[in-house]
């Protein structure tokens, strides 16, 4: 049982939520994140603050405005400016009248990924489930089918670990392992339809966007980190069949590099050497399989992919 913190130090706050292997303190309701049930000090403190206005600078990569070894500041137009410091503080400056939901989605995505980087965890762009042999992740670029594959497997009863952002720990006795993320996933309308999910009652990611938020909170939950067994790299190809190819050597390393969150910013964060070592460690401990699927995302196509995956789960 944890002792209640005895301190007047205002920089310590109690955790309100858990995700990605960390305890978070949010100054607002955040139903998507799993609530903290024990009284513990937060690892990451989120607060509202006044942050300098960032002007879009074409010289900077995308919207990042300040990046160094200690902090990252970035702005998302029409939503908020975010500051992430030392893996411990997240400051938010929402734009007046902006969409709180978008801000929360960014907190669960890019902000959380920066926090993980700053704390020595490895954030991969992937969704994951649990099988008897361990966690299996699906990494891939936008549109590759990570969330659709996740949704199809969750429908078949596999517990979900994460969607879009996988928090990987490379230290400790069960290395490497994946921490549970936030129990929700995002699906485009056509994927939802192919999976038989009604979208009329689902919240949209953003107005006028046909992408929906699906809660997995009712399904089988994962409480602790799970040893990582296999990473599947999903890609689309112009063949009619699904193909599986186990990756080795530099190609394996590069697949993991390719799907690391914010990989183009690692050097500016001063993390490129540590990250290199993390990827080598991961490459030498986990199986990576390149899965290529036909471009058309039909119901039959999804079923074919799931059948091939389940056959691979027996390996």
């Amino acid at each position, binding site marked *: 049982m944890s002792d209640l913190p005895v301190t007047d130090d205002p920089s310590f706050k109690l955790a309100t939520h858990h995700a990605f292997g960390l305890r978070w303190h949010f100054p607002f309701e955040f139903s998507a994140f799993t609530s903290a049930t024990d009284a513990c000090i937060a690892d990451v403190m989120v607060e509202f603050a006044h942050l300098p206005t960032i002007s879009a600078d074409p010289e900077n990569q995308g919207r990042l405005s300040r990046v160094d070894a200690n902090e990252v500041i970035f702005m998302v137009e029409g939503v908020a400016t975010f500051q992430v410091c030392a893996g411990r503080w997240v400051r938010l400056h929402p734009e007046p009248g902006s969409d709180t939901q978008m801000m929360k989605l960014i907190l669960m995505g890019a902000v959380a990924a920066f926090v993980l980087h700053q704390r020595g965890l490895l954030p991969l762009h992937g969704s994951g489930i649990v099988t008897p042999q361990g966690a299996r992740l699906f990494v891939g670029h936008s549109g590759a089918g990570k969330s659709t594959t996740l949704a199809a497997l969750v429908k078949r009863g596999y517990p979900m670990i994460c969607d879009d952002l996988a928090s990987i720990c490379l230290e400790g006795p069960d290395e490497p392992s994946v921490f549970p993320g936030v129990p929700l996933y995002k699906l485009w309308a056509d994927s939802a339809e192919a999976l038989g999910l009604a979208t009329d009652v689902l919240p949209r990611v953003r107005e006028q966007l046909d992408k929906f938020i699906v809660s997995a909170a009712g399904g089988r939950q994962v409480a602790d980190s799970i040893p990582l067994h296999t990473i599947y790299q999903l890609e689309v190809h112009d063949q009619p069949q699904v193909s599986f190819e186990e990756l*080795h*050597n*530099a*190609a*394996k*390393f*590069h697949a993991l*590099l390719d799907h690391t969150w914010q990989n183009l910013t*690692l*050097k500016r964060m001063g993390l*490129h*050497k540590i990250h*290199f*070592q993390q990827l*080598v460690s991961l*490459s*030498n401990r986990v199986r990576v399989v390149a899965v290529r699927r036909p471009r058309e995302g039909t119901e039959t196509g999804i079923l074919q992919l799931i059948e091939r995956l389940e056959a691979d789960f027996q390996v």
Partner: protein
Amino acid sequence: MNDKQNLTLETRLVRSEHLTGSQVDNEWVMIDLDSGEYYGLNAIASDIWQRLAEPVLVADLCADLKQRYDVETERCEREVLALLRQMQEKHMLRVV
């Protein structure tokens, strides 16, 4: 150091210090810590890279490789020089 210096059999080379690497399966993956660029070396190239940890004369390097891989001299020298020139272009080597 003249980057455009012609690399020959009589050149003595050593690898630059700002690159770090590790084995993944049969290949050697590397990162240039100054530029942030990544490289992958196949088995033979990584063998050469290991030998460049200490200063070595290109001619001696070729002689070792010729024996080890049972390749004829002319081909060995041609391919090794081509690889070393590529590495030199990427600032991976120092002439000593």
